[in-house]
């Protein structure tokens, strides 16, 4: 060996140094999680629309006003709920970021303003399913008959929407069945729940249920007795939802649940929600049976142990409003 070979020895050492000192590479082997959790989901900005892949061609668009489901196939796009309308251009841009197919269906889970406000504008951006040359060129809005009536005859506290956003397809039976984008889609009516026009929307092939405000993991349900709603119907609706969801195993994964507001869920969160509503109903019923007035019931704080998760002291639906609505329903003779 002569001196000329020494640099090679040095180079080998340097190479070893470099190899051992380099940070962990980003392209690491895939994890072995049972339930896939996306690596990065943008934090929720009240002026933005966040897009979360759910399963197959189904996505969850999150806005401060509520969640929107977007499903698409070769025949077009079906969305469930349309937001309150304030971010519709951004909602449309988010949809266009996923597919350039036309919006064919807008399904509404209820007639609540924060879920139908974008109906008209999004409908005008679409075209009827299977009828690309028809007139007018608008997507079909689908909802339960009760929701349709309330959109056309809004109560004084409801914001009216352009008639372009009114339902074109309605149903009055238990279930409406469609087939779209490679999957059966079922609208399941849950009577007298939050209102008299609520639907759960089941996408069978991707195994996802869109609940509207029947379920949200971060707030008490907004029960509207003046629009045909009730706590009893809401609890029945959540139990119906539990009948529709099947966990993969170990009470996790399987059927995914897109709530009206908040994060993507599965049956686990729905069980907690049902338990919460059932326990609170039991407590307030007992207080009423003791002869307590509404003020006394509010002072007893029957929701104390759930308020940290679901309660609110401000905004359009406070804990006090929720307890009051429950009290008035249960106190009826």
């Amino acid at each position, binding site marked *: 060996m002569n001196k000329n070979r020494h640099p090679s020895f040095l180079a080998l050492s340097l190479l070893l140094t470099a190899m*051992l000192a380099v940070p*962990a590479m980003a392209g690491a082997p895939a994890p072995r999680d049972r339930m896939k959790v996306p690596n*990065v989901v943008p934090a929720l900005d009240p002026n933005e629309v966040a897009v979360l892949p759910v399963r197959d061609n189904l996505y969850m668009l999150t806005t401060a006003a509520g969640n929107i489901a977007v499903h698409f196939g070769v025949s077009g796009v079906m969305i469930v709920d349309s937001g309150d309308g304030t971010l519709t251009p951004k909602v449309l841009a988010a949809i266009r970021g996923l597919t350039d197919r036309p919006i064919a269906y807008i399904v509404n889970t209820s007639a609540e303003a924060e879920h139908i406000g974008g109906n008209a504008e999004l409908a005008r951006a679409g075209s009827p399913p299977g009828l690309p040359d028809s007139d007018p060129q608008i997507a079909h809005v689908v909802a339960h008959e009760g929701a349709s009536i309330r959109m056309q005859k809004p109560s004084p506290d409801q914001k009216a929407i352009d008639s372009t956003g009114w339902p074109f397809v309605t149903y009055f039976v238990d279930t409406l069945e469609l087939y779209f984008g490679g999957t059966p889609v079922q609208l399941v009516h849950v009577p007298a729940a939050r209102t008299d026009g609520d639907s759960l929307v089941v996408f069978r092939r991707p195994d996802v249920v869109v609940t509207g405000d029947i379920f949200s993991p971060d707030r008490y349900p907004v029960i509207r007795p003046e629009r045909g709603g009730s706590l009893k119907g809401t609890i029945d609706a959540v139990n119906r939802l539990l009948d529709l969801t099947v966990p993969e195993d170990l009470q996790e994964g399987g059927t995914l649940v897109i709530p009206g507001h908040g994060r993507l869920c599965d049956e686990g969160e729905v*069980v907690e929600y049902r338990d919460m509503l059932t326990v609170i109903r039991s407590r307030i019923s007992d207080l009423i049976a003791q002869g307590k007035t509404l003020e006394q019931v509010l002072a007893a704080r029957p929701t104390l142990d759930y308020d940290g998760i679901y309660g609110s002291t401000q905004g359009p639906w406070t804990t006090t409003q929720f307890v009051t609505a429950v009290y008035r329903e249960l106190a009826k003779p």
Partner: protein
Amino acid sequence: MRIDRRAASFGLLFLVGALTGSPANAQEIDFTGEWRPIYHEDGPERIPGPDLGDYAGIPINDAARLRADSYSPERIIAVTENGCRQHSADYSMRGLANLRIMRELDPVTQQAVAFHSRIGFHTMDRTIYLDGRPHPGPQAPHTWQGFSTAQWKGNQLEITTTHLKENYHRRNGIPSGPNRTFTERWVRHGDVLTVVTIVDDPEMLTERFVRSQSWMLDPGQRTFANPCEYGGESTYEPGTVPSYLPGANPFINEFADRWGLPRSGARGGAATMYPEFRLNMEKPSATPEKCTLYCTCMNNGAVCPDGP
């Protein structure tokens, strides 16, 4: 053959430096192996399970206490959906925690990019990422085991876990909230692994809740699979959620009275975590003459002469 000793020494120094001087490699501890739990801490809580009404030493708030007081064990049978529910990651190490840890290496750098753990009971699989990835945003789903990332702190592994499902701080009804996070320190001393768990729960706790548990390396252990699917059948009406009304749980004081403990201590809260609590606590309700339950024998199934 002639070798230039100076150049060779220089190269050798680089090689040694590479092997010993790389910060990440110098700190990495390998936790790989089969680990058998040691129940010398909190044995009665971890193996037979905690008594109803035992909230001692947990910094619960009024909300958590009310929820725990309302809890009925009948719910285990009636709420069939929860029949296969896992312990969440912050509680899983408290129970039948036969533990397997596997290390995942980057094929090029040979640095650890993740640890994978499995606890046999209900197949509690978990991934702890070491590759610097961020945690998911608020819309991402929560799971029983959450989302964990880690970094080395000296020879300890510090793990941060978020995105946990609602679960329990103690499996007698003390709830844990869905927005809690927890930090762990994994420490290895030879064949002993100790994990310190520090939980922050804004909805259910008033202070951080710190616990520890240890394992012994046991290469002969078989960590089993425990798949589970619930049948959905029970004798209860569908939708039944057994619970006690506020103030109506008859078992609240059973634990304190059995052991002759002051009832206020059993009610939990941050004060019960600290020794100073003893200075001001009320007199115990009674003092049992003889220990009859869980006396000294919680250590790995040894036979207890005085009872179970």
